[in-house]
């Protein structure tokens, strides 16, 4: 369960401080499928990084499964990222000059799983993100934007995390592949995984059962969707 209480985030940009989040509060229960919407620069990615334990808020409280994240040590945070969270970056962040399969299996390297098992899991994750099988051994920097996006999604799924955070996972995909990826998220959600995704498209957001709209670092709307 994610409990965000009055979180702010201020970036220090040389002369001026910029407040990207101005006091955001919400709770996401286990098993929810939440879409976060909002105009560019409204603070969606900033919020997502905090929820993903990649960044720390300037003030406010973040409880993940009851634990105060800001009080955790660095290696406890690493452990949470490794075991609980799958993160799809808006800019993919793949390892350069490295094969697709190694990129996807990378998170498992730090879990101590044997190598053959890691490869099996990586292939499963690639299949469920709809990645072409004959490209598994291509280098990451030789892929199209959409292919990179699916590799990034597969990498987020590979450790079977209970919480999947995706920053515009369908932004670079055509409608058909996008649909396939969203089906994967829906299927994972049905299996009990909590999913939070950021999107600009209302069609995509409609796959979720709750939409949180952010504007200028504040929550503008928080609505449930009946399917």
């Amino acid at each position: 369960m994610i409990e965000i209480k009055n979180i702010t985030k201020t970036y220090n940009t040389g002369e001026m401080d910029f407040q990207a989040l101005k006091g955001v509060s919400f709770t996401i229960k286990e098993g929810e499928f939440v879409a976060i919407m909002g105009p560019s620069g409204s603070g969606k990615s900033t919020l997502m990084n905090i929820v993903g334990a990649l960044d720390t808020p300037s003030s406010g409280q973040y409880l993940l499964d009851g634990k105060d994240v800001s009080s955790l040590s660095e290696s406890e945070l690493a452990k949470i990222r490794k075991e609980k969270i799958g993160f799809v970056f808006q800019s993919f962040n793949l390892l350069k000059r490295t094969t697709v399969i190694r990129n996807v299996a990378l998170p498992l390297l730090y879990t101590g799983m044997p190598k053959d098992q890691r490869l099996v899991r990586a292939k499963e994750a690639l299949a469920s993100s709809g990645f072409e099988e004959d490209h598994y051994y291509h280098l990451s920097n030789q892929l199209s934007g959409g292919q990179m996006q699916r590799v990034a999604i597969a990498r987020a799924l590979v450790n079977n995390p209970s919480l999947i955070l995706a920053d515009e996972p369908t932004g670079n995909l055509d409608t058909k592949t996008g649909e396939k990826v969203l089906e994967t998220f829906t299927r994972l959600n049905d299996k009990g995984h909590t999913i939070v995704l950021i999107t600009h498209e209302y069609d995509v957001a409609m796959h979720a059962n709750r939409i949180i709209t952010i504007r200028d670092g504040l929550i503008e709307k928080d609505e449930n969707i009946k399917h």
Partner: protein
Amino acid sequence: MNWIDLFEEIYWSLSANKVRSFLTILGIVIGIGSVIAMVAIGQGAKDNIQASIQSVGSNLIIITPGAQRGVGSQISSGRGSAQTLTQADADAIKSSVAFIQSIAPELSRRYQVTSRGKNTNTQIIGTVPEYPDVRKVEVTDGSFITSKHLSSNDKVAVIGPQARDDLFGIDAMAVGQSIRINNIEFKIIGVTKAKGGSGFSNPDSNIFIPITTAQRYLAGDTYVSTISVEAQDQESMAAVQQDITNLLLQRHKISNPQAPDFSVLNQADIVASASSITNTFTILLASIAGISLLVGGIGIMNMMLTTVTERTREIGLRKAIGADRKDISSQFLLEAITLTFSGGVFGIILGWILSLVVAKFAGINTQISLSSVLLAFGVSALIGVIFGYYPASRAAKLNPIDALRYE
């Protein structure tokens, strides 16, 4: 991460960045290789010079006229420019100083030498039968001067191979032929073995005649220009040197031992002064090598720092997907160690090959010293580890988002 995963990760990381890995290793190879080669050459040159000094004779004490003016100037100052040593001095040393193996006074001067049309200007050494023992001269053809030649002032000569080549043609038969020294005819009775050397003081150009003949027919007096003394062993050198000094001071009636009219030079002094020259030489080479090590080090540093941006992002990503600081540090430290270690091994091989090549083409007996290997290896390992590991460990301290955003 277990060890196999760690090594596999390093393997992938290094082979995904072949140029970077290669240039880093190259920097280390050049640095280590040049230090090892330079020090080996310096050491070899030093041994070479010492060996050629030893070949002049062992346990040798050289007495020359004129006051001592330091080792270097003594050698270059004209012998016989001061005429203070006499045949009687040599005889007195021989009869009253203990622990002397043999003693060879000589009277040397340059004269014009001619033979059937050819002529040369060379060093004529009037000396005694003991000279070959004391100064390590060997006779290949014929024989050296005997005491009989000495007592009857015979006009006989033993010539060096270079003098023979100059006067009779290369490798010509010289024994039995005649030469004219200062227009006096001498019969050749022997040829000495080549020692090597060149220029003004080439020992192979020397011509030896009986000292009595030299004094009587060439110089016209009984002064000597050098007395070479061979002590019985290394231990008696100091005592012999002291006794000779005391005896000559007394014979020359000099009361102030600080102002003698002769100098007694120990071979060890010559070795010491030559060593100090070769030490300077070795230091020079070592500094050049040190500079190459530094340049190599800067190369490594440059490689490591230019990739910091990319590596920082990589570290950010690895942290974002669950690596903790220990995983990151062990990977990057081991990576730096792998690079410097393989560079070090190739560097040692390169240094070794270089010194072999120099040994072959320059005729220097190069010697690879363990300390230079250790020093070079240590320095480059330190550079590699510091500049490979330090940026990585700094990046590992950033939070993942800051590392991913690093410019």
